[in-house]
């Protein structure tokens, strides 16, 4: 399946590849977290990643973001190694917990990536949007001087998204960013994220536990399976854009969720 995918993209060769994994494996001691994973993520795509716990969803993001080395195989981001891509600030990471520094204001938190890494050879990319404009983009205009504890969970996560965008990454890695939020806030941030994706053209890899969220956000859903973590299937989500919340109550949408739920059960 995955080999076919790779072959197809290479054969057609139209869309440039944002991230490419070739036979990539990750091991922690004798435990194999990811086994022989091969896939290509086209530039500008929105991939959501689903799978049972222990399937290596988070590990995959950490592999791509150079937090974990590959035991074997090759991972490339826009043709560069993960380390080169990190130094070039090609990607940004949004964690489940917003990971804001509690002593910094919202604005200063967004500015953090601009203050780090120069000594390791990072040339901080110039973004076309200032930190202030990014806070405005995520709907936090007027709260730029608030400290994280003065913001709600949803607002904190929006600051984290603004921080991720500040170096104008081409690839955005998101590890269950809305997992800890209530449903209303989550819906709201889903819409907002789709809008940011459309405006910036960034490629997104989005790990989630929620099947509806995976279908609602993704152009494609990567279904991973566990023990060891490997690719089970890539499901194309052929639903129109721009998407609205009410899409969730339509028959095509529920057909996708039902299909994915079935897949998940056989993992």
């Amino acid at each position, binding site marked *: 399946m995955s080999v076919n995918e790779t072959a197809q993209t290479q054969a057609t060769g139209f869309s440039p590849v944002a991230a490419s994994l070739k036979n990539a494996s990750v091991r922690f001691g004798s435990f194999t977290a990811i086994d022989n994973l091969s896939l290509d993520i086209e530039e500008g795509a929105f991939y959501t990643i689903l799978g049972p716990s222990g399937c290596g969803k988070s590990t995959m993001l950490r592999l791509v973001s150079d937090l974990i080395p590959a035991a074997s195989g090759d991972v490339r981001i826009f043709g560069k190694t993960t380390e080169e891509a990190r130094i070039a600030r090609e990607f940004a*990471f949004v964690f489940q917990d917003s990971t804001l520094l509690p002593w910094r204001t919202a604005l200063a938190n967004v500015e953090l990536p601009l*203050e780090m890494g120069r000594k390791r050879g990072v040339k901080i990319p110039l973004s076309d949007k200032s930190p202030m404009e990014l806070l405005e983009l995520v709907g936090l205009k007027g709260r730029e001087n608030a400290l994280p504890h003065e913001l709600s969970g949803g607002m904190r996560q929006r600051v984290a998204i603004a921080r991720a965008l500040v170096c104008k990454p081409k690839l955005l890695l998101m590890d269950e960013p809305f997992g800890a939020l209530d449903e209303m806030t989550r819906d*709201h941030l889903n819409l907002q994220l789709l809008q940011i994706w459309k405006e910036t053209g960034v490629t997104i890899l989005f790990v989630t536990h929620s099947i509806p969220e995976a279908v609602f956000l993704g152009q494609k859903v990567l279904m991973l399976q566990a023990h060891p973590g490997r690719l089970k299937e890539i499901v194309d989500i052929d639903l129109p854009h721009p998407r609205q919340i009410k899409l969730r109550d339509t028959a095509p949408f529920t057909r996708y969720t039902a299909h994915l739920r079935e897949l998940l059960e056989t993992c």
Partner: protein
Amino acid sequence: MTMVEKADLAEPNESELAAKIDAEQVRMERRRKIEAFLIPMTTVVSLLLIWQFGVRYFEVPMYIAPAPSDVGAALIKQFPLLLTNFWPTFYESVLGFFVGNLAAVCIAVAFVHNKTVQKAFFPIAVFINTIPILAVAPILILILGPGLSAKIVIVSLICFFPTLVNMVRGLQAVSPQALELARILSATKSEIFWKIRLPSSLPFLFSALKIAATTSVIGAIVGEWVGADVGLGALILDSSFNFRAALLYATVFMSSGLSVILFASVTIAERLIVRWHT
């Protein structure tokens, strides 16, 4: 549903609701503050009155237990004497406080950056902490003489350990995700230290400094007991040997006043610096 369809991003009415909640909280806070002040004040005043009338009623001799009014009178009449003895103790406490805590912070930083250093020196730090300060004070006075330096060392020793332990914990209390973020940003060790580890250790540091603020006065007084002719500790010994009970009580009052000043200074500094924890 309009809320979600609007691509506009603010959560509805959030700020309004927050303002209402804030106002309510301010009111509650104010009432709590008044209560927190009035209730203990009433208790203190009542206890002082019981003491005053108890001493007078049972005709306790003044050299055993002076009445609060006697202590008050001594405090006013002997104030120049008290003040001359206050300043040496103040300097010893403050200087020792800075030396001890600075050493603790530096060693904590070394411990966190080098596990071998930690393994080598932490047992020694624990050992030093187990020696009672009263036992070690005469040794230090023997080595360093009855001057200021011996007291500074005694105060530093007594401040050192709680700050070391807290600071090590504080520097390690960085969330793993914050470190992953730093790695993704290709941060250097020194960037991680100055921008992440050090700020996140500050709440821990200040809780240690609050302990040190009061123990430093204990250290200074102990040092003065062992060998000094000025200072509140010396005055305590002198007035008790001469049965000047009112002066003794006034001196004790001054000592606790010194602790309060140091503790309050640390608390104010904490409020100004650590604004992200309540």
